[in-house]
């Protein structure tokens, strides 16, 4: 920031009106001095300029913003709005209350220096414009501070605003605006943690109170008051950092206009003209600050008409010759030597270029460009392929572990399967009249075979007739539970008896007594033949 202050002097000298050091430090230049500070700068110099410009105005920006934000936040807290929501609201409405700082900065640039009272009194006028859009679709914009002057100071909206932003964003300041936001967001977070740490360090050892734990324990375990304290702290930190964000963005905006419209030169000419006409060098100070600011702002924002000059009477050919003559003047051939670090490779390439490009160099350049294009496509394809592969691996891993049972149990189940548990369950493998076939087996004394047929038929029909889906991993007991859930109580009870008889016979070699076998056989059709009980 000191760089901006020190760099202000040469600019002022160029204007022919050297600012007093105190004035520069106060950052309260009048029209002549303030505009004299403007000159083409790099993006970061511009941000530095903005910070330096904001420092003397910081207190009034902070107080004015706090007088709006803090009472509303306190009111919301008193209305029992959760503290986290209050902090979120304060953060979300930044595009609204940051305009307060921008108002102070823009007025101060031209020497007006509005008081807190004046700033707040003017609040309804400048806060309303496009507010809804700024709090909704434009809220995520990373170039907020850079774009805000277009809305607030130029009054542009809709298509005009879009075209204006499109023009402004073409310059070299947009990236810096995004990085400014990123940097200050981190600064906010760091300040929040630092203040909490400071509080923790200031707690004397004998006092057994964990400030950090108390403060950052959110959710259900949060201590009473902790979320309020944390939210208020975050609001205060936002208030503290916001003026710098606005100032940085505003400075970028100003310097983009210097690039775009040679704004600094225009205002230097105005000053020069004023002096030559014998007017005081501080016309606005004398004629009334308000009028002056309006005129200058109008000029600055392109609202005023063109400045009449003697060039108006020239024909193009004469103008061209005069321009050529002017450009031939020594003043346009000043050579500045700037030292910047560069990669050795770039220097070597430059050296080669000095000698004129060889055929090989041209070929190499073409090859490198083509290779870069192919590599770019290849890299994108590889990245997409990698993402696809990764997704597939993750899905496969999850399904491999959980067999998909967590998400889609149906996919793993089999309805009316042809084969299950190693048993043939297809309809064509069953006799047409299964109960009669089982009775025949019973009559021949083959009770195990009869039970096996009944059980197999019941499993098959449970799927095909009752739509019950059985899992491949289901044991006999689990199948009973599933069938019971899908059939009537009596039907489920029958299936449980049949399963029990079959299990005892199959695994325990315990054949059911003839009465039970006959009963199971006789009742089978009622539950598992088409048109039976539950079918």
């Amino acid at each position, binding site marked *: 920031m000191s760089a901006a202050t020190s760099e202000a002097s040469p600019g002022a000298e160029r204007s022919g009106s050297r600012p007093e050091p105190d004035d520069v430090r106060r950052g309260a230049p009048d029209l002549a001095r303030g505009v004299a500070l403007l000159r083409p700068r790099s993006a970061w110099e511009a941000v530095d300029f903005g910070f330096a410009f904001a420092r003397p105005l910081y207190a009034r920006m902070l107080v004015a913003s706090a007088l709006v934000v803090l009472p509303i936040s306190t009111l919301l807290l008193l209305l029992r709005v959760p503290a986290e929501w209050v902090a979120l609201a304060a953060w979300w409405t930044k595009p609204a209350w940051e305009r307060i700082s921008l108002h102070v900065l823009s007025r101060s640039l031209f020497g007006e220096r509005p008081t807190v009272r004046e700033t707040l009194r003017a609040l309804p006028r400048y806060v309303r414009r496009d507010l809804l859009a700024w709090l909704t679709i434009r809220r995520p914009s990373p170039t907020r501070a850079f774009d805000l002057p277009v809305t607030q100071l130029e009054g542009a909206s809709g298509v005009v605003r879009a075209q204006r932003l499109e023009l402004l964003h073409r310059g070299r300041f947009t990236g810096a605006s995004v990085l400014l936001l990123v940097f200050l967001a981190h600064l906010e977070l760091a300040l929040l943690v630092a203040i909490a740490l400071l509080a923790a360090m200031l707690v004397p050892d004998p006092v057994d109170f964990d400030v950090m734990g108390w403060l950052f324990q959110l959710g259900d375990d949060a201590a009473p008051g902790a979320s309020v304290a944390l939210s208020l702290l975050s609001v205060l930190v936002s208030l503290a950092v916001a003026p710098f964000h606005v100032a940085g963005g505003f400075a970028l905006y100003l310097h983009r206009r210097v690039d775009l419209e040679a704004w600094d030169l225009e205002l230097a000419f105005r000053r020069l003209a004023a002096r030559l006409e014998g007017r005081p060098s501080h016309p606005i100070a004398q004629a009334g600050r308000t009028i002056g600011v309006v005129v200058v702002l109008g000029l600055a924002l392109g609202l005023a008409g063109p400045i009449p000059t003697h060039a108006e009477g020239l024909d193009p050919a004469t103008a061209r010759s005069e321009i050529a003559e002017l450009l031939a003047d020594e003043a346009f051939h000043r050579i500045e030597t700037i030292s910047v670090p560069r990669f050795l490779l770039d220097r070597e390439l430059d050296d080669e270029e000095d000698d004129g490009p060889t055929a090989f160099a041209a070929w190499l350049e073409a090859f490198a460009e083509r290779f870069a294009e192919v590599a770019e496509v290849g890299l994108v394809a590889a990245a997409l392929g990698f993402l696809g592969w990764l997704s597939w691996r993750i899905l*496969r891993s999850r399904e*491999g572990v*959980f067999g998909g049972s967590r998400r889609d149990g149906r996919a793993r189940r089999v309805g009316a399967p042809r084969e299950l548990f*190693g048993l043939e369950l297809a309809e064509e493998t069953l006799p047409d009249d299964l109960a009669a076939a089982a009775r025949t087996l019973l009559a021949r004394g083959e009770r195990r075979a009869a039970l096996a047929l009944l059980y197999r038929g019941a499993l098959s029909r449970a799927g095909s007739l009752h739509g019950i889906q059985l899992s*491949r*991993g289901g*044991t006999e007991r689990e199948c009973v539970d599933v069938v019971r859930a899908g059939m009537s109580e009596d039907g489920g009870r029958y299936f449980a008896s049949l399963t029990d008889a079959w299990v005892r016979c199959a*695994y325990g*070699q315990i054949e059911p007594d003839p009465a039970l076998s006959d009963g199971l056989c006789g009742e089978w059709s009622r539950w598992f033949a088409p048109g039976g009980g539950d079918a």
Partner: protein
Amino acid sequence: MNGVLSPTDEVIAARDRIRSVREEIAKAVIGQAVVVDHLLVGLLAGGHVLIEGVPGLGKTLMVRALARTFGGRFARVQFTPDLMPSDVTGHELFDSTTGGFTFRKGPAFTNLLLADEINRSPAKTQAALLEVMQERQVTTEGRALPLDRPFMVMATQNPFEQEGTYPLPESELDRFLMKVLVGYPDEEDEARLLRLVTEGRVGSDFVLEHVAQVLTVEDVLALQRVTAGLRVDPAVHAYAVRIARATRDRVGIAHGAGPRATISLIRAAKGRALLEGNAFVTPDDVKRMAPAVLRHRIALAADLEIEGAPVDEVIAALLEDVEAPRL
């Protein structure tokens, strides 16, 4: 499949005896029926049980009540970082009257050994249990001293306080037939427990005097023989093998279960079958016992560990994928 057997009187009598043991334990241990059943399965199968649960859930009470039902001897060892192997197995003592050494038996010479918080002792002491659990004997000065029968180790560990603990090595974990998880009792059981312990009693000791001895040590040995003799169809054997092998190829499992898991599955399934009063083992018995038998024998892959996936959930999904047999 050839001969036809009917349930023997021995199996029916065994089922009735086990039911009476259950009823007696239920007089002292309120709720935790599943855990008690697992303990009984462990006793019937002649295996050891690792019990995991927070303190105060009645693990010790459960074991003492079980010992009381068959008149068995019970010993409890609190495992601490400074516990020595000889504190468990016993040690040689110089006898000044005879001028020689005599062996003083440690707490391992009992029927039911409760190794409380086993993971608080270092590997050396834990390893002392290996021989005791696997060989059921203690070797000292070149002599092998057999332990009493039945012999069962019930080891407990606390799942939460992991600081200052020594996780059991896989070889020792594998010696446990099952790992049983003890959860909190439900509200009704907790209220009953409260009344039982506090009404008309001084202190908070649990009530064991109501637990009657319904079996003898010999009865338990006989029950173990009956359990061992239960019929297992080859298809059920194959099912147990399929389950154990599935753990080795499963995505998400770093180390699957070994052959001892297959053996344990069938032993535990036999215990459960007898508990149910069956003279034969069904796939259902195997599947029901699989989580307890497998959960301490498999290690989840790192990504699942990091994700905190419960091992029981992985086993449940695995069991759903392994086709159950039908005869």
